[in-house]
């Protein structure tokens, strides 16, 4: 009874547009109050807010956000898209494919999907519109390509999962590399099929000389430097993820200085925006904790795990249902909130079913990517809508083919877990 009331309160507060963090914290607090009165509620509120923030390991999240801010200021992210355009511009739909490549490249220096979508939208959408791409196709490609940032390291989603699951963040980040490349290929293949089926949706390509091609690479150098400063050092073990995040932000800051773009207002703006984004993520973590403690105390977590574990189904069938559940949750909920709410409940079950926790982390992040672009709550589509001034319905339709492609990738990764687990197994 109480559980139904708490869930109803959560849904109502989400629907009216209260911030997700407050909605979860308030409905969880209502549950805690009904469960144990003021002592239990204030006991939880006495400790969990501070504990959400006061940890050293959590600095990877703000540091990677800060790094992306500095990269955007430096302007080299835009050059990445231009270079990609020059390299694949000759193919029909080439600029759209270049967007996917730039999304992968930007994903390699940014941990946040929405930041990546915003950057891509500001550069590649005007370019595609100018060349005569159909807005539906252009917007869809940008929205889905932005999601690559949460899979290709550094990834805030994977870091959060690692902290929640208490497993090696290095291994998790490295595990995201190959699936990230597969998703990139899937996006490009989807574009190829779309322009083949509907030739009018994209213009013919434009060829560039080899000289232009190599000249364009010069500007990509700094990005490669940054990629190695982060993912390279994590893979080789030269730096731990926390160190790599701080160094990454610092190198990105130097890059912005070198490009002559880091004025004092730009610097303080980057710090403030990074602080706000970090705060937003931490606040959702706090809200999910308060909500989660209620679920734990009410034994919902425990009963659910026991119940599912006792079902007469094969582990793979249960996994399919779990992934379907994630996709459905992704329709309406924020991806970080989903991770934080579900991982502590689902992971023990998944491990007891015999699945690898690193594999599962990557799989649910790929699933979360789908949630970023499905209605009604699809953050990346919202971001693209703000830049393109196009209706949401059109954009959601434009991204649908990529959703199907993503589901195929998920099926592939589920059937062959080694695709995910091989690269981290080669780490020292």
């Amino acid at each position, binding site marked *: 009874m109480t559980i139904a009331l708490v869930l109803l309160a959560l849904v109502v507060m989400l629907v009216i547009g209260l911030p997700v963090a407050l909605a979860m914290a308030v409905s969880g607090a209502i549950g805690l109050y009904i469960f144990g009165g003021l002592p239990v509620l204030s006991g939880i509120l*006495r400790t969990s807010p501070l504990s959400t923030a006061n940890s*050293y390991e959590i600095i990877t999240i703000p*540091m990677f956000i800060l790094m992306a801010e500095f990269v955007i200021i430096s302007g080299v992210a835009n050059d990445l898209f231009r270079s990609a355009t020059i390299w694949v511009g000759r193919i029909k739909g080439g600029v759209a494919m270049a967007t996917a490549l730039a999304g992968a490249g930007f994903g390699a220096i940014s941990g946040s999907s929405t930041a990546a979508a915003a950057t891509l939208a500001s550069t590649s959408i005007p370019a595609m519109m100018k060349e005569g791409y159909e807005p539906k196709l252009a917007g869809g490609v940008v929205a889905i390509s932005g999601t690559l940032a949460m899979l290709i390291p550094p990834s805030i989603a994977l870091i959060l999962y690692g902290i929640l699951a208490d497993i090696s963040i290095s291994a998790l980040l490295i595990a995201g590399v190959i699936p990230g490349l597969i998703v990139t290929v899937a996006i490009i293949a989807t574009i190829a099929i779309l322009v083949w089926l509907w030739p009018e949706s994209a213009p013919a390509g434009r060829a560039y000389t080899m000289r232009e091609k190599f000249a364009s690479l010069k500007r990509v150098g700094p990005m490669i430097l940054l990629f190695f400063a982060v993912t390279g050092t994590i893979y080789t073990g030269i730096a731990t993820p926390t160190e790599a995040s701080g160094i990454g932000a610092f190198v990105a800051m130097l890059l912005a200085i070198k490009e002559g773009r880091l004025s004092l207002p730009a610097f303080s703006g980057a710090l403030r925006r990074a602080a706000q984004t970090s705060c937003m993520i931490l606040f959702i973590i706090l809200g999910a904790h308060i909500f989660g403690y209620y679920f734990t105390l009410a034994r919902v977590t425990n009963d659910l795990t026991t119940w599912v574990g006792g079902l007469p189904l094969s582990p793979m069938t249960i996994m399919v249902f779990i992934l379907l559940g994630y996709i459905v949750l992704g329709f309406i909920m924020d991806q970080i909130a989903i991770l934080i709410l579900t991982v502590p409940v689902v992971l023990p079950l998944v491990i007891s079913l015999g699945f690898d926790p690193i594999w599962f982390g990557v799989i649910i992040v790929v699933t979360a990517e789908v949630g970023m672009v499905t209605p*009604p709550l699809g953050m990346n589509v919202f971001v693209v809508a703000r830049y393109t001034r196009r209706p949401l319905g059109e954009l959601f339709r434009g991204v649908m083919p990529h959703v199907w492609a993503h589901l195929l990738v998920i099926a592939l990764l589920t059937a062959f877990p080694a695709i995910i687990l091989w690269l981290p197994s080669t780490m020292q």
Partner: protein
Amino acid sequence: MMQSQPPANGASALLARIESVLALLSGLSLGAIMLIVVADVAMRYVFAAPLSWSYNLIGLYLMVAVFFFALSDTLHNHGHIAIDIFQHQIPHRPRHLALAVGYLLSSGLMALIGWQAWLRLKSAYLNDDRIAAVIPWPTWVAYFIVAAGCLVMTLRCVYRTFGHAASGLTGRDLVETPPPPETEPQAGEGAE
């Protein structure tokens, strides 16, 4: 993503000024974390002498400041993610009245968090509680940051409570709301 929200009235502007000061402290803490991590790694690799105080300084104070000092500024600037897609399909009055209730409950929650932090601050300060480390940092500073951040956040939530209640009762827009996700020309078409 985050834009700067102009305050709707004098009360909000006053709060926004306090929030800006705290947000500056939050941003500076973030910058300090970056520099300390780099210095720590450099000292460890180059001089084999890592900073013994960095781990606790960052974990105990700086991360806490990043979070709690940005809390209210982020709310004011609509930086805390909300599901803003159904919102605009709900009629003006019930939507604002429901939000008033939501922010009233949020005010209570933030006040309770701040109050608990205040109790811990008092006890830690009076007992001179310190962590056991080479530098025995006092713990009351962390509780102070929580209490101060929550106080401003509570005031912002109280302001929103009254603002939404007034908007709901008068039928006018008397409080800051996030920009709609749709774009103006095709505002009629929602999500499917």
